[in-house]
């Protein structure tokens, strides 16, 4: 009897083992836009993943910067020849949500609950978690430590300090140092003030434009008041690090900004964005992971991609990614892991970034968000360059966004 049991047990174990070993090999394509150190970090994670799942081959390809990645993905969507999984901004995929393979339903409840809350709305389409956050950064305030002792905590402090720090150092009538700086091609800077004033681009159910509400005007007026004390450039601030004493920029630019400051001979501090009248939230930047549900993708490929996503969400991997790239972990367990806690302890600037990341908002997954954003960018630049009043710019935005809601 015992012998028979052992035999049956062996047969069962053996057959499972065989099934496990003869798992059909599957190859998936991962398209990303991460070069240099960031690309190496992806390669390392992918290699670890393949070691754990020997039957899965991940063809991970760098497709160029975000612009190239976006065009190639659009072309692939039109041609029906998408990769299995790719790095995407929300507005790249919101127009094509019908060909996406929702990731959320394939995750366990724990995995879903583990994702940082602020990161969920931009990844949720029609109530279903469809994509998952991957390389996420946060807009924070950088400041010159030689000039700023305590970074501004409120709008009023920010405005006062910007005013005080703007200076014509050699008395030739030209301002040599500005209190702060803004980037016209970065309308997210405006969206932070809009959110902090309690405003929004659209109402809750996306049926009405609310950008020109009282809150919108308050935010735009605040920026308008800062314009005389602001260095305005479309170039990266790391190329103009001495021009301004404080500026809002993404945490992903930390190494570039600090490198530039070190070259210029000063220390660069990092703080949370100054808080507005309603809240102190800042805006999340960076891309998410999408799995395509197109005809060229088999179920086995989609399943393998889900395994890759689950792998990347594990605390040790999101933390590895964050430590080696300058992005932020995307799961709560990542933030709570000892490795991350130790990392933050030895890198004090990370405190502000992490705190801000956990008090953040993200762009809305509206199908026309790409167009809405470019309208906002146009109006925002007009205010920064003094070409329009805040009221006129906001009304222009509202007029242009209105027809985009009908589509």
């Amino acid at each position, binding site marked *: 009897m015992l012998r028979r049991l052992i035999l049956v047990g062996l047969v069962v174990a053996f057959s499972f083992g065989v099934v496990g070993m003869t798992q059909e090999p599957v190859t998936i394509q991962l398209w990303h836009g991460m070069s240099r150190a960031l690309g190496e970090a992806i390669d390392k994670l992918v290699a670890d993943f393949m070691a754990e799942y020997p039957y899965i081959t991940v063809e991970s390809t760098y497709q160029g910067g975000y612009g190239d990645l976006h065009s190639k993905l659009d072309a692939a969507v039109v041609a029906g020849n998408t990769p299995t999984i790719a790095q995407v901004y929300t507005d790249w995929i919101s127009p094509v949500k019908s060909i996406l393979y929702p990731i959320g339903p394939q995750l366990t409840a724990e995995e879903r609950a583990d994702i940082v809350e602020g990161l969920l709305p931009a990844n949720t389409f029609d109530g279903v978690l469809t994509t998952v956050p991957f390389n996420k950064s946060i807009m924070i305030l950088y400041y010159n430590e030689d000039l700023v002792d305590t970074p501004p905590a409120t709008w009023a402090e920010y405005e006062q300090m910007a005013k005080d720090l703007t200076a014509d150092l050699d008395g030739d009538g030209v301002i040599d140092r500005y209190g702060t700086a803004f980037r016209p091609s970065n309308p997210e800077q405006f969206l932070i003030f809009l959110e902090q004033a309690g405003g929004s681009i659209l109402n809750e159910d996306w049926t009405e434009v609310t950008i020109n509400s009282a809150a919108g005007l308050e935010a735009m007026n605040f920026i308008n008041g800062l314009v005389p004390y602001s260095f*305005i450039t*479309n170039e990266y601030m790391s190329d103009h690090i001495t021009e301004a004493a404080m500026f809002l920029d993404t945490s992903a630019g930390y190494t570039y900004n600090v490198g530039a400051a070190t070259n210029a001979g000063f220390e660069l501090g990092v703080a949370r964005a100054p808080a507005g009248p309603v809240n102190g939230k800042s805006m999340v930047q960076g891309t998410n992971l999408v799995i395509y549900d197109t005809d060229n993708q088999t179920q086995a490929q989609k399943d393998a991609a889900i395994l890759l996503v689950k792998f990347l969400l594990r605390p040790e991997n999101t933390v590895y990614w964050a430590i080696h790239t300058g992005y932020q972990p995307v799961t709560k367990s990542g933030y709570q892991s000892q490795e991350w806690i130790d990392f933050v302890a030895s890198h004090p600037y990370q405190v502000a970034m992490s705190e801000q990341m956990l008090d953040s908002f993200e762009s809305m997954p509206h199908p026309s968000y790409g167009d809405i954003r*470019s309208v906002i960018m146009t109006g925002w630049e007009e205010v920064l360059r003094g070409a329009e009043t805040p009221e006129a710019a906001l009304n222009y935005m509202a007029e242009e966004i209105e027809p985009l809601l009908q589509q």
Partner: protein
Amino acid sequence: MTDPIDLAKRATLMGRARGTSLRWFYRIRPSWRESFAAYLYLLPALVILGAFVFYPFFSAFRLSMIKWNLLPPRPFVGFDNFRYIFHDKYFWRALWHTVYYVGITVPITMTLAVLIASLLNKGLRFLSFARTSFFLSYISPLVAITMVWRWMFNARFGLFNYFLSLIDKIPFIHVNAVQWLNDPKYALPAVIILSVWHYVGYQAIILLAGMQNIERQYYDAAKVDGASGFQIWRKVTLPLLTPQLFFVFIISLIGSFKIFTEINVLFSGTSGPLRSAETLVYYILRIGGRIGNQTPHLGRAAAASVILFGIIFAFTVFQLTVTQRRVHYQ
């Protein structure tokens, strides 16, 4: 080079050897037979041109009439895209910027090129060195030189403002530092300066080649008649240079209408402050979603490119009919 007829004969012989006949081929009229062989030779090039030039060219007309979405449906909308563009103030600005840019860049570059070519033609000591150095600006990669120029235009540390500050030191002259890349007034002029510098060498070399091809006898005859140096230049060199001038004019006109790279690099992936240096091609690529991560609206972009095509086509026809009459061939 094998003669096509020969080839056909050989094919027939080979056919006979295998027991078949290509006699039908010889029943075709000889002139057709020749064109057939010629088209056969052209086929590889035609296939490539067809796939990458002609097909996209004609499909742009089709695209301009549909509302293009990433995923179907892509409904036919008639002239809606054109209507959208004609109501977009940025289209009209882009058109104006393009005309302004072309209207200034082409004449200035050509005038300078004629002057440089004339000087080089005078018989410079280090002619080949001078030629190379003028050509260098043209053969250097556009993106690389534009990045260098971005620094030269830098408002605080750039070379241009340094020169302006030197001029400022001259008594009674006052010039301010210019925010070249950050002031809507100066954005397009900055692009023009860069373009003139970039293309003048290329044009000068072509014109120089043209000048050196002018036969000596014309100059000798003019000298015998007692013409002064300037008169010779005005009455002999320039008229006999018209074929090259005409060529350079068309090439640079079409090229200038298509300016894009310089702008995109100079203004860090934007078209300048308040889009003050946005040209038609930039506009087309922007609304087509190729720049700045924008949502692609290929229908609108195609409509705008049809308009750009119309403009360039009109100019070319104008040049071929009107300007051509003033070209003198030797």
